[in-house]
């Protein structure tokens, strides 16, 4: 029992999740049903994939504001390619390549030209949104292949296919962060840039690579967004920025770098997912949900920070 309690204590997000699960199961009879959980999992695959990318950027001490609209841009371009070729594979590759392209742009400007991450990604955020709207003329892209629509509805053991894709990406990212030299270097650069450079780490390349990684994830998220919605919608990612950053910080990954993990972000995404789902079931209007989300993000961050600093001292 004791190790379990210690485990719970080191992940405050788990306590919040437990409280939310118990609370909502008592308040709504529809909450604890397999259908509801399947819907919840499917609806949050996009945010989960995008949040992985944001986590890795945070861990390296940066920030990527463009992730949200890169989701939109890669969804639109992927949708256009699928409408032309009727090939889902071509669409998936296109989405990821577009995301990698934006990531590489961010990475070169921030890693090699030493521009400030905040402004650089704010600018590419605008550019990606513009591209998404120009190419789609501001409306949903028509002509999604049937197989893609099927893919959006597929599920296995009650887990939607889109969520499985997200989980595979989570597992690969966890392995990359904890088992590879690259992952260790990312953490080092995030916790102490100067020391990392003196230790002979190519910090510029590491910074470049985290934005490239985040871009690739945003691209994959864009593809999954088409599967979820049935169409590529040019504004699909725009409103997700708050939720993505919120999920990452709620999980306990700080913006100062070097502290946190992809696993924690999964918990952060889960908190916001359960909260939104439960509040919807209870009929709470979206604007009150915005207030609750804001308060939770703030308090969650504070809690994670307090526990983190106590663990250190």
């Amino acid at each position, binding site marked *: 029992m004791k190790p379990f309690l210690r485990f719970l204590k080191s992940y405050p997000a788990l306590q919040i999740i437990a409280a939310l699960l118990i609370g909502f199961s008592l308040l709504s009879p529809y909450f604890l049903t397999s259908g509801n959980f399947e819907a919840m999992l499917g609806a949050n695959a996009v945010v989960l994939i995008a949040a992985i990318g944001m986590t890795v950027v945070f861990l390296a001490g940066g*920030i990527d504001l463009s992730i949200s609209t890169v989701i939109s841009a890669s969804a639109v371009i992927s949708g256009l390619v699928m409408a032309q070729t009727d090939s889902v594979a071509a669409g998936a590759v296109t989405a990821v390549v577009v995301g990698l392209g934006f990531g590489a742009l961010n990475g070169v*400007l921030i890693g090699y*030209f*030493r*521009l*400030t991450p*905040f*402004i*650089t990604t*704010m*600018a*590419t*955020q*605008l*550019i990606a*949104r*513009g*591209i998404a*709207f*120009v190419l789609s*003329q*501001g409306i949903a892209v028509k002509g999604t292949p049937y197989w893609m629509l099927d893919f959006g509805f597929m599920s296995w053991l009650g887990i939607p296919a889109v969520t499985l894709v997200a989980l595979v990406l989570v597992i690969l990212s966890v392995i990359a962060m904890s088992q590879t030299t690259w992952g260790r270097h990312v953490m080092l650069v995030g916790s102490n840039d100067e020391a990392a450079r003196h230790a002979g780490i190519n910090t510029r390349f590491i910074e470049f690579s985290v934005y490239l990684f985040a871009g690739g994830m945003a691209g994959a998220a864009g593809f999954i967004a088409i599967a979820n919605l049935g169409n590529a919608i040019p504004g699909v990612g725009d409103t997700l920025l*708050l939720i993505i*950053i*919120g999920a990452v*910080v709620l999980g306990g990954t700080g*913006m*100062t770098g070097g502290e946190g993990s992809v696993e924690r972000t999964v918990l952060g995404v889960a908190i916001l997912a359960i909260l939104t789902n439960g509040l919807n079931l209870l009929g709470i*209007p*979206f*604007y*009150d*949900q*915005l*207030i*609750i*989300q*804001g*308060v939770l*993000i*703030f308090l969650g*961050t*504070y809690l994670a*920070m307090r526990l983190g600093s106590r663990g250190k001292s």
Partner: protein
Amino acid sequence: MTRTIRDLMSRQKWVAIALATIVLAGVLSVVSPVFLTVSNFQAILVQSSVTAIMAIGMTYIILTAGIDISVGAILFVTSALFAQLYMDTESYLLAFTVTIVCATLLGALNGLLIVKFKISPLITTLATYSIYRGAAIHLTGAQNIPVPREMGFLGNGRILGLPVPILILLIVTIIGIYILNRTRLGVYTRAIGNSERSATETNLPVNKVLIAVYGFSGLVTGIAALILLARVGGLQSGIGIGIEFTVIAAVILGGTKLSGGSGTVVGSVIGAVFLVLIDNGLNLLNASPYIYDIVRGSVLLAAVAIDRYSAVRQKASLEAQRAERMGFGGPHRAAQ
């Protein structure tokens, strides 16, 4: 001549954006004959007044090395508050006072949360962004509320031939410059941005200054909200969405450093005007409205890249000078 301009530009960052604005205005006046008229000029200033006024507050915040993502939500919540209060009480005095006071308090609340909980300004204001926006829609029930016609005076009226928004912008700019350069608050603001640690160690009232700075930003955002309401004619649910990025872009274009300590109020105002000029130009070219974002983003990228390049060059030339003075032989000596 070029040397003096370059000297001036390196010391006074806003000169660069001023020159860029003049060049862009020159190009636009060649493209379109209507551009170079007093009325078009006034229209551009009126159009930029809301973001320019908000940018003045944001300049202070960025000077302290902070950021406020919630300004768009403050703009929206104060607009909602004014519209709702006026509809309920029909008293201008009450509605104006409560709106301005609330705007200031909401800004100050950001500052208070940041100093008390020590969470980064970005995350704090991201959270309050969500809270303020939700509160505003809660308050008005997501309806559009018209404001009375006399209110239009704030948006379209004139005093001594000058449009009221321009007049208000002028007053806020002068106050902004005065506080920053002539008062202790202004000096402390820069000091905190240069190094919060040394500011704390020299016993500056860091927390009070930060709360005041975020409160000031809230105050001017409240003023901007009144102008916006008057110009738009009523409360609309889209007010303020995404405006925080335009405001930050104006401040950065104006030469203020995101890392704090260095920047000017004038630069931010010119930055806001510059952004409207770009829209104006794209409009003259009949460009698709969707292209605006791409151009804005590219301009912002170009601005930070140029700034970075000039900083690197300046540093290199400084080092060369120092090396020469110390007799190590800079590049000049080597050439001889």
